[in-house]
Every structure is written in C-alpha cells, then in structure tokens.
C-alpha cells in the first residue's frame, strides 16, 4: 500500500476547505485528516455539507479555496489527466446509488473491472459473484436497478464501490434505508473488507451511534465545519455543545435541526 512514498502519512488531508453555492457558504473552512488504513466516519445533521465535502474529496466539485491532499498529493489544482490517475484509487458509493439503470446488477458491479482492469471474463465473473454474495444479493444478478428495493440498490452500489479493491473508499450513507440486521451486516462487511485489503475509508453515516463500533475515527460536521474530530472515545467524551445536542437528538429519535429533507432517522 505505498503511494508515492507516503506510506505512513494520512490518506486524506483537508485544510481550510471553503465552497459557496450562491449566497450559501456550504463548506466554511473544513479541516480533516483521514489516517491510512482506518475508517473515518463523518456524522452531522442533514444539510450540513457532508455530501458536498465528499464530492470535493473525489474531485467532482472544486473548492473556492483550501487544499486537499490525497496520499500526499495536493489535488485541487491538478489537470484532468492527473486527477484521473488519483481517481484510480477511489471506490465511491453515492448517497442515491447512481447505478447505471440500463445495466443489470451483474453488469453494474462488473463495470469498473470490465472498463478498468485486465482480468479475464471468468475472473471478473468470480469476483462479482463473490462480492454479491457478501452483500447478500446472490441470485439477483440479472435484475435491473429499477426492479430492486432501495436497500438492494444501496448494496449493489456498495458492491460496485468495493469491486476494484480501491485503496481509498468513500461511502455516502451506505446503510441508510436498510433494516437493522442488514445495517449491522453491511457495517461488518465494510470493516472486514477494510481490514482484509488494508484500505482507508471515509464514510458518511446517520447510523449514530451504531456506526461508531466499526469506526476508528469520527468527525462531527456542523454548518460547514468539522467541529469535533478524533478517535471514537475522544469524540464521545467531547464537551462540544452542538455535538452533545446532536447525540441527544439522535437518542431521542428526532432531528436536531428540522429539515424538509427526508432524513435517515426514518424507520430506525
């Protein structure tokens, strides 16, 4: 797992990242470190900018100011070819799945390997079937995304994110909309994959506090800033008012800030 000689440095470093959409300052100076070979979980109220942050990390969006280092490389000023070589390291799960709806489950999951690897047809088939079994979707290969339930789409998208064994995994709410048993199973899968292939993961999750069990580090995001971050124990003992209110709101099963968006607490 060496990349450009930065074997021990953090996989991702974010410094003072700012981004505004119109009048809204969505990222307001985000600073964050995601250590190598660990799972960093970002939590925070709906609309605080978690998805926007993740889309900056994988370079879909460009910041107004600030820096992002991926494996020690500053990526915000790279040209598109250099960006593509950084992206080769990524596996990404989009919050809404972003499955290719013209392709079957099998083709969706196989897609990154078909397009980006030299594996043979049989090798690809074996890999895809294995990962589909791990996410609990065996027998679903021929179905199309529109024929799947929301949770099944999520798991297909997770399989697609994992299939290339990326060195950096970005997961935007991998368990939202899953039942509690599935949630635990997916958490365990993320954990075991992370340990088996020694990858670094950034995960956005609303499954607080269950998700802490498989997280190495937690970052609490609030109104465009990371307000608290550290190991799970450090964060849990934090005295930050917003974080305490956020946790209390979670425990009571209600949103901390009322939002018109449908949020992950539904059905939990």
């Amino acid at each position: 797992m060496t990349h450009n000689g930065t074997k021990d440095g953090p996989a991702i470093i974010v410094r003072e990242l700012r981004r505004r959409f119109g009048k809204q300052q969505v990222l307001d100076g985000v600073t964050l470190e995601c250590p190598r070979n660990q799972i960093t979980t970002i939590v925070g109220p709906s609309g605080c900018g978690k998805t926007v942050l993740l889309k900056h990390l994988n370079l879909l969006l460009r910041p107004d100011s600030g820096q992002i280092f991926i494996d020690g490389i500053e990526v915000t000023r790279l040209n598109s070819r250099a960006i593509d070589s950084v992206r080769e390291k990524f596996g990404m799960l989009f919050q809404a799945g972003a499955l290719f709806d013209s392709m079957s489950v099998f083709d969706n999951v196989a897609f990154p390997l078909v397009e980006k690897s030299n594996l043979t047809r049989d090798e690809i088939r074996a890999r895809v079937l294995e990962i589909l079994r791990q996410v609990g979707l065996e027998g679903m290969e021929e179905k199309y995304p529109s024929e799947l339930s929301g949770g099944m789409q999520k798991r297909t998208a997770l399989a697609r994110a994992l299939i290339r064994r990326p060195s950096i995994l970005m997961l935007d709410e991998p368990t939202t909309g899953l039942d509690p048993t599935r949630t635990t199973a997916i958490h365990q899968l993320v954990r075991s994959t992370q340990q088996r292939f020694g990858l670094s993961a950034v995960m956005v999750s609303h499954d607080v506090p269950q998700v802490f069990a498989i997280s190495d580090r937690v970052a609490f995001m609030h109104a465009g800033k990371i307000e608290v971050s550290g190991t799970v124990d450090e964060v849990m003992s934090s005295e930050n008012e917003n974080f305490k209110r956020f946790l209390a709101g979670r425990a009571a099963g209600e949103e901390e800030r009322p939002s018109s968006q449908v949020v992950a607490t539904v059905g939990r």
Partner: protein
Amino acid sequence: MIEGVAALGNFVLFLFAALVYAIAPPYKPRLLIRQLRTIGAESFFLVALIGLFTGMVLGLQGYNTLRRFGSEGALGTVVALVLVRELGPVLAALMVTARAGSAMAAELGAMQATEQIDALTVMAINPVQYLVSPRVLAGVISLPLLTCMFDVIGIWGGYIIGVGLMGAPSGPFFNGIAQNLGSHDIAIGLYKALVFGMVVMWVCCYKGYHAARMATGVSRATTDAVVLSSVLILAWDYFMTAILL
C-alpha cells in the same frame, strides 16, 4: 449577453471534445456498434415510411405541375433531384431527431439527474468519451446510410404514383434520372447527411448532458434538443445549399 456567449462557447467545446475523444484511445468499438444499432433500429422504419410518402407526394405534385408544361418525361429527374439534394438529408435528419435524438437527450438527462455521469467520472472514465463520442460517430455514420435508403424508397414512391397511378411515361422516368443525377448531386446530399448526423447527436447529447437535476430537467432537455436540432438542420441546410449549389 456574456452568459449567452459563454454558453455558446461551451456548446462548441462540447462538440470539439466529443470529436477529439472519438479519435483518442481507448477505443471501444462495441459502444459505437451499440449506438449504430440504436439509431438504426429506432429510425429505420420511420425513415422508410416517410421516404415512401414523400416520394409519393412528389410524384403526384410533380406530375400535375409538369403536365401543364407538357414535360411529364422530366418527372423522374425532378423527383430524384429534389430527394437526393434536399428532402432526403433534411427529412431523414428530422426523423432521426424525433426518434433517436430525443431518446438520447432523455437518456443522458436521466443519467445526469441520477448522478450516473458523476459515477463514471469518479471511476476515471471520461463521460464525454464514453457516452457522447460514440453517439456522435454513430450519427455521422448512420445518417448518410438512412438518407440513401430514404432517397431510394422515395424515388420508388414517386414512380409508383407518377408512372403507375398517373400515367407518366415509364422509360423517361429512369432515363432522366440516369442522365441528370450526377455524382455531384449525390455528394452534396451525402455531405449534408453527414453534417446533419453530427449536428443532431451534438445538440441532443449536449442538451441531455446538461439537463437540470430535477424531474422537469429531463423533459425540458428533450424538448429543447428536438427544437434546437430541427432549427439548426433547416438553417444549416439553407446555408450549405447556398454555398454548395
């Protein structure tokens, strides 16, 4: 004003990128073949049908007009020239816009709205190269072929009505075509078809690719694509005719 210029710049750059990526590796022939199949399958019967009726109406009108001057023998020439130089490329392009072009705008619009295009980007797959270049190439290849089919069917349609129904002389119909339809005329028609193929796919892909991320965004993109591409086809046809005549 400045926004308009910037949008026009993006529009032109989009085509430029699609063409550059079409000739840059990695080559994915199966993507091109799939698009050829889509355009062909979606437009084949429509183009054939419209070609037949266009030829039939030309046979009818042409016969009635030419008879006033006593030159029914020129019917074949008139039908063939009008079809090959003008109506074939233009109508085939409009039919491809209506079927394949609108479908592509809607498909790419939905892919944009549901972040599928972003997913490609994050996989380090250039979405313009993967989605747009094969479609533009397929348009450039298939529209001349569809136009040829339109022309041939149209000429037969004109023959059936003009000669078969109205009674224009049969011999001069084809002799006239053989004598007066030059390779220059055919070249102009095919050249137009080729340019139209590019324009249709360019406009429809651009509109779909830049659809707004909401439910109305996709329908809006589809409508815009059909309208803009139809207008561009007819406007461009005038200028190409004026220059090439």
